[in-house]
């Protein structure tokens, strides 16, 4: 039973990471980033380039973070700021265009055949009682925890983090106060893409590396975000973990509905619990 929970937490950690990235961008800029998963995919391929040159997989972690931060800055400064005048459909289309571009670039240079991605950490699993603690899963949960702690520190203890939350609360109020909205938005995109990179890196060893390997993860991340109320990072984290654990339980006991379960769940929640399980106040809709 604990095996199920442990594996569920590892899967859930990935959902949480991706969902967090989505919620960060959504709450501060009201853009739903449909390319969050594929960003992680692109960055995972970047890591793969390093690994092919004999760099130890675990050291690619800072690589994806930095690459993600840079990519996020470029995307926001170069594009999203100009896109502000577009309709919401337009913004959605732009992020969808990113998925096309990222998947296309990867397919052109690496082909569509799945590539094997080495685990970030090797060694035998730890066994305590009847529970098996696989090292890769353990590392995933650990990395996710570290990221979440860092995120909370940034969001609650740094000026720029508090400013980001203020923009999420009331953009006009922040604007009038003189808070530099553009600069903080840049920061949020950079942060989100860095987190996306980490999500991609920890997912790659579990599934093979191919242009679409993060698409399913992203879908689950959206479900997790909806569970968590769509506008709180804490909600996204909890939503992801709960979804991961629930999924694993269902996979074990009722394998037939394993995949469709979360899909039906999200539709039900969207219809009946628009604020998710943890959502605060009113969710932003357009």
């Amino acid at each position, binding site marked *: 039973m604990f095996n199920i929970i442990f594996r569920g937490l590892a899967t859930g950690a990935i959902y949480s990471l991706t969902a967090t990235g989505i919620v960060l961008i959504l709450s501060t800029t009201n853009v739903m980033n449909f390319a969050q998963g594929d960003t992680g995919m692109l960055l995972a391929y970047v890591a793969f380039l390093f690994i092919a040159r004999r760099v130890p997989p675990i050291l690619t972690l800072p690589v994806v973070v930095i690459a993600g931060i840079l990519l996020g800055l470029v995307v926001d400064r170069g594009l999203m700021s100009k896109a502000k005048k577009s309709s919401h459909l337009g913004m959605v289309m*732009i992020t969808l265009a990113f998925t096309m571009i990222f998947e296309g670039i990867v397919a052109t240079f690496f082909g569509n055949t799945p590539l094997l991605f080495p685990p970030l950490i090797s060694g035998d699993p730890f066994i305590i009682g009847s529970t098996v603690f696989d090292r890769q899963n353990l590392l995933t949960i650990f990395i996710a925890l570290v990221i979440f702690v860092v995120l909370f520190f940034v969001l609650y203890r740094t000026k720029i983090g508090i400013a980001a939350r203020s923009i999420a609360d009331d953009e006009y109020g922040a604007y009038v106060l003189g808070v530099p909205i553009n600069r903080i938005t840049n920061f949020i995109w950079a942060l989100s893409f860095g987190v996306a990179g980490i999500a991609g890196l920890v997912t790659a060893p579990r599934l093979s590396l191919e242009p679409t390997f993060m698409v399913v993860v992203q879908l689950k991340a959206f479900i997790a975000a909806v569970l968590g109320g769509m506008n709180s990072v804490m909600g996204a984290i909890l939503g992801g973990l709960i979804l991961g654990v629930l999924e694993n339980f269902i996979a074990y006991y009722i394998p037939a509905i394993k995949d469709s379960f979360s899909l039906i769940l999200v539709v039900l929640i969207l219809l009946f619990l628009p604020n998710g399980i943890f959502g605060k106040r009113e969710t932003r809709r357009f």
Partner: protein
Amino acid sequence: MRRRIINLAGFALLLLIPVFLKSRPSFIGYINLAIIYAIAAEGLNLLIGVSGQISLGHAAFMAIGGYTSAILVMSLHVPSIVAIICGVIVSAFFGFIIGFPALRLKGFYLAIATMALGTAVTDIIRRLSITGGDQGLRNIPPIKIFNFSFSSEFSKYYLFLVLLILAVILIRNFLRGKGGMGLRAMRDSEFGAVSYGVNISYYKVLAFVISSALAGLAGALYAHSVSYLGPSNFGLALSIDFLAITIIGGLGTIGGPILGSVLWIIVPRLFGTRLESMATVIFGVILIIVVLTLPHGLYELIGKLNKLFRRTSQEQ
């Protein structure tokens, strides 16, 4: 008068295209695929461009139509026309079912819900044995009307063209009538539309029904043309492709989806198969450019160029 000549010439050209390409049936095949996509795209265009809703699950309706028709023909030996009509009806029915929950969702949330539902459909298709599961259905027979088998690309071209023209005429008449005005009013201002007595719910659901019916038709035509249906072909990627086609071609216009589909299918083929994934990148870039600069897509651009051309030729 001049206009009519141009229209007639264009029409004659359309009829003669396959004759010109008789030596390259595979190219006609691509054109046929473009026509199929155009039919589906017209449906999506109605949903997004005219009624202002969004769907990231359009490909699923195509799958439903295609599988329904294919299964009816293959397992129950239902005649083609009936099977295709059933495919359309079943798709429309699912559109009807989805239309209701869609009433309560807006924007991003509708996008997520349709994305989830679209994926759920392909999942279910994967699990059922009647649909061939993961392997899909092979050797789907071509459309047969009165003992004539539409198996050559040549013959399919004319059939599909007729259907596309019918679909376009139907849509145009619908848009010009009360239905179209209701949808457009709704897209522009729901609040305003309600105060004029427009029954919003009716039109929203109607939009879903029509768009899924068209996708279903496209799916059925696809099934009997390509002869193979696989669940992985109808996933999120295809839904996103349709969105891209609709937007690049021109949202809210009737010619837009056709233009978009033609570009989508034919342009990458002109460059050879090795560059296909590069084509996706280029389309992504074009999509971004269109969103940022041409909200009504390339169709609008052509319209503007046309005006420019006419003005300069008038000055001469």
